């Protein structure tokens, strides 16, 4: 049976970076923390944690539940919920605020449209908070249905949460930065949730759509969907856009026999034919390419190296597709390799695209 909550195409899922057991461990700990009375002074917070974390454990895969040793905690929670369910429910209901969630969601959309966040970190956290908080509110509704069934209150809240879920469905790409969290939570889910408990499956219904969105985003970033142009398509393009064998005046990388530009300017040692430094827009990472003037065959590989502000290799870009002057490569351990002949043949400007982002060239020639 296909698991609707798993996308093996996603790299963080394949490599195990998205860690479902970490999420389970946290839910269990939060439930324990509330049961141990650490939140007793704030009944509203305590109620939210007891109800939503109990429900979170209900939908996880049995093997995770067992490995986490969650049985005692769940039994203890169920005793507490059986005793205090209605009181906890009224406390928790007082705090759920879908309107505020929608405002925050709109703020995220506006900020992303205007590049309005102070940092990438803030953007990631805002996206993750929205996903996580909506999920917990939906789990809360599920728990209320079980432990304090006030149909009118639950129906009202469910309607509001549906609006939030619709927003998320329509704007899934905006929370793509929380991709690893989304994958980690989804990986905890029992694949047979729909057959087992449709009400519980409702709390997880947003994940397949979110996973599809982050899959599309990852494909776009790695340029997996870009197919080479067919000969017919190439023929239909204006010559200036294609680059031709005799368009040497358009080539940015001179051949080895030409006078090195760097040497001509006196700015660099004479054995360097061409070198370039590109900056990540708004970031601190750089990419550097050095081509030596010594004669070399076309199939020799040259290295475009990625470094952080301290000059250390940026290993985190591994797997990212790059295009330099239209020539494609993939970063492996902070290096993208190109055939020298391909770069020699490249026409136009030495534009560098890293994923979907164009880096800015500081001309060092």
């Amino acid at each position, binding site marked *: 049976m296909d698991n609707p909550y798993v996308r093996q195409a996603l*790299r*963080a899922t394949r*490599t195990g*970076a*998205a*860690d479902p057991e*970490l*999420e389970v*461990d*946290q839910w*269990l*700990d939060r439930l*324990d*923390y509330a049961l*141990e*009375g*650490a*939140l*007793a*002074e*704030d009944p*509203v*917070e305590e109620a939210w944690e007891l109800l939503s974390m109990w429900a979170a454990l209900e939908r996880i895969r049995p093997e995770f539940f067992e490995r*986490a*040793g969650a049985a005692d905690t769940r039994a203890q929670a169920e005793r507490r919920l059986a005793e205090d369910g209605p009181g906890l429910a009224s406390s928790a209901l007082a*705090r*759920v*605020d*879908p309107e*505020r*969630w929608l*405002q*925050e*969601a709109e703020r995220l959309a506006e900020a992303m449209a205007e590049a309005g966040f*102070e*940092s*990438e*970190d*803030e953007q*990631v*956290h805002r996206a*993750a*908070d929205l996903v*996580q*908080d909506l999920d917990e509110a939906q789990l809360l509704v599920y728990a209320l249905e079980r432990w304090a069934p006030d149909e009118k209150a639950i129906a009202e809240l469910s309607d509001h949460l549906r609006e*939030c879920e619709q927003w998320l469905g329509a704007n899934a790409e905006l929370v*793509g930065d*929380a*991709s*690893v*969290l989304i994958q*980690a939570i989804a990986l905890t889910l029992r694949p047979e949730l729909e057959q087992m408990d449709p009400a519980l499956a409702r709390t997880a219904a947003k994940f397949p759509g979110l996973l599809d969105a982050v899959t599309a*985003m*990852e494909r776009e*970033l790695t340029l997996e969907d870009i197919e080479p142009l067919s000969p017919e398509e190439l023929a239909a393009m204006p010559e200036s856009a294609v680059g031709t064998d005799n368009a040497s005046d358009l080539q940015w990388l001179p051949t080895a026999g030409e006078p090195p530009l760097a040497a001509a300017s006196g700015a660099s040692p004479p054995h360097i034919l061409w070198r370039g430094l590109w900056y990540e827009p708004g970031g601190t990472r750089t990419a550097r390419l050095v081509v030596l003037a010594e004669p070399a065959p076309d199939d020799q590989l040259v290295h475009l190296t990625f470094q952080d502000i*301290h000059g*250390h290799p940026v290993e*985190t870009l*591994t*797997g990212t597709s790059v295009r330099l002057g239209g020539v494609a490569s993939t970063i492996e351990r902070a290096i993208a390799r190109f055939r020298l002949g391909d770069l020699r043949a490249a026409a136009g400007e030495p534009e560098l695209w890293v994923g979907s982002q164009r880096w800015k060239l500081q001309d060092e020639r």
Partner: protein
Amino acid sequence: MSGNPETITGGLSLRELEHPVTGQRVTVYRDPGRVHQHLRDHVLSAPESEAWRLLWPPLEESLDFDDPDARWHLLRRAESESGALQDLYDRHVEAVRAEVGNAAALGWHRWREHTTVCLGTGGVVTIFAPMIRTAMIPGMGEPEATRRTQALDATSSCMWRHRPMRGASGAASSRSRRRAPLERERGWDRHQRLYYRVFRPAVQAVRQHHPRSLNVYGQPRHNDVGLLKDVLPRQSELKFQRWRELRDHCGRS
């Protein structure tokens, strides 16, 4: 106070402590300006100030932590006379040294590229890059309240979970908004207070931070607190009794 002064600038002697992996002596913050900024944003700003007080009671010998005016006056005085922070800074370094020592003893540290991150049994996360960039207690307080003053310390400002679904009264975690010991806490000893109010929320914050610290490919975006996830025991293995045993093992009973 132990620790050799490395630099004396503006009347403040910078201290050193041992790196948890290499054993090399490392300066605690780059310069007096960073010391001032760090003490202001972490040790003297509520609610983290309360956590530091619980973690390292000798800090209270430097000033009355319960008195916000006293904290504010100290900071004002230090603006023109950085040596005014020496006593507090020295005690703070002692606390960080103890935490880093715990991390070394328990293996709660992780190294990547030029950065080392470690966690002590009191909940202090220390980041070496290569000198100490920050020593802070994650999981305290509402991020909105402190973000403005912590713009230079992105690690701490993102160690908070913002909760947009919870109404105004629930915007911040209750754990962080509380100040005075409440009913239940009156029955707790200082170990329980440290465990429930400082250490456990800190570990929760570290774990919560992990998936957010990765890029879409699952690789770390920065070398920061998220790296600790793989070296920490499961939360179920960090219950109060076990934590006490670990503290005893580290000589901090």
